[in-house]
């Protein structure tokens, strides 16, 4: 069990984005990283009434651990419903840990074009970075030992819950 209140972390993330993102929200493309990041992005899009294009992104093709772990058992497709060239992208993930997923996700985005800007929003920053990656928006910082993992889930209404494994 964890004492981390993931719903208040989400509220903080939502409000900190709302404070910065200008009213011309249709110019912002929200892209979630499979699977948890897509859930957070869907909810942010709804709660912030973002009308711009969206997308869901798989980092599998650019992961640096393919050589050791192979492909994930449930390989997801990347879907970017907008022209990446020149786009202002908010990349959304649930957990930020080593930074390797973000590195792979950036490479994936660049396979589709050259965006004008990419910012990163994460629900939880658990520390342990192995690459020079930082989030622009973060719900909560909560250090976790390397051998543990946060597992995010959501119920039918879209509310999040979190367990530590």
């Amino acid at each position, binding site marked *: 069990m964890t004492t981390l209140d993931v719903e208040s972390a989400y509220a903080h993330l939502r409000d900190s984005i709302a404070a910065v993102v200008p009213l011309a929200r249709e110019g912002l493309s929200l892209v979630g990283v499979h699977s948890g990041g897509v859930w957070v992005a869907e909810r942010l899009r709804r709660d912030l009434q973002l009308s711009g294009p969206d997308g869901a992104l798989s980092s599998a*093709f650019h992961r640096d651990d393919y050589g050791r772990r192979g*492909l994930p058992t449930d390989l997801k*497709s990347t879907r970017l419903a907008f022209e990446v060239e020149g786009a202002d992208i908010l990349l959304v993930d649930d957990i930020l840990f080593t930074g390797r997923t973000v590195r792979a996700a950036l490479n994936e985005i*660049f*396979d*589709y074009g050259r965006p004008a800007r990419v910012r990163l929003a994460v629900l939880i920053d658990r520390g342990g970075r192995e690459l020079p990656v930082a989030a622009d928006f973060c719900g909560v910082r909560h250090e976790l030992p390397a051998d543990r993992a946060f597992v995010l889930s959501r119920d039918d209404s879209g509310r999040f819950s979190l367990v530590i494994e």
Partner: protein
Amino acid sequence: MPSRHPQLNAHGELKHLLTIEGLSRNLIHHILDTAAGFLGVSDRDVKKVPLLRGVSVFNLFFENSTRTRTTFEIAAKRLSADVVNLNINTSSTAKGESLLDTIDNLVAMHADMFVVRHAQSGAPFLIAEHVDRTRGNVHVINAGDGRHAHPTQGLLDVYTIRHFKKDFTNLRVAIVGDVLHSRVARSDIHALTTLGVPEVRVIGPRTLIPGGLEQLGVHVFHDMREGLRGVDVVIMLRLQSERMRGALLPSAQEYFKHYGLTEEKLALANTDCIVMHPGPMNRGVEIDSAVADGPQAVILDQVTFGIAVRMAVMSLLAKS
């Protein structure tokens, strides 16, 4: 002989792809799911992903095939592998080198994967056993051996059917034509029955239907009209005149009259029946142009899906 399936490793993962026979339903679905993930790669600005960077894939085509070799080459290149095409007819084999000596030489050049097409059934098995004995981490894909198997074609065929029909468990599928010489038909039958298709039919003249098909759970028809009635999928086979010896057929015209797929015969199938063909097509022999170019044909979709299926197979094998 080892008791385990020669194409699986000790963990039950696919190490080589030699035949569909013996693959589990879950494993076939896993390959198709993975292929679905690769489908979008060909639509990107950069039609390439770095998964097989540094992997050397050798296309060994002991039998001619431009189409299949090209699709394997494209699949490997979209995975960033290095591809070497060996034209065996003008190489060492023509100078008398044995098959396994050729393989040993290529392995000594640090080949990681062989894509093998051979006129002799079983040649890719021989190569897979040999590399398993001599080197632990070399993979073999059967790109068609004799009359035996063409597993990636079988996989792309069931991928195509799943794409258009969603569910296998309520389908009638007819395979029409030269089943006797067709490794595609064998691979399709194994894939379809493993995936739970309740009724697989084969349709063709007595001279081109091998015995014993009923033991695979297949219904045999010699009258095409009768066999097409109520089917959801028609897979036409190419008439392989280059493999025919002796008088198996009176003439191509006579064959077309009885077993060529025309709009009139296709009307006997279900109205949403799809028409497939592994290519290359003989228009006017096994299929009429009006059908090949018609709204029910998904023949070019098969080609597109074939790239994604071969990318999936290669990336699953490479890290097994």
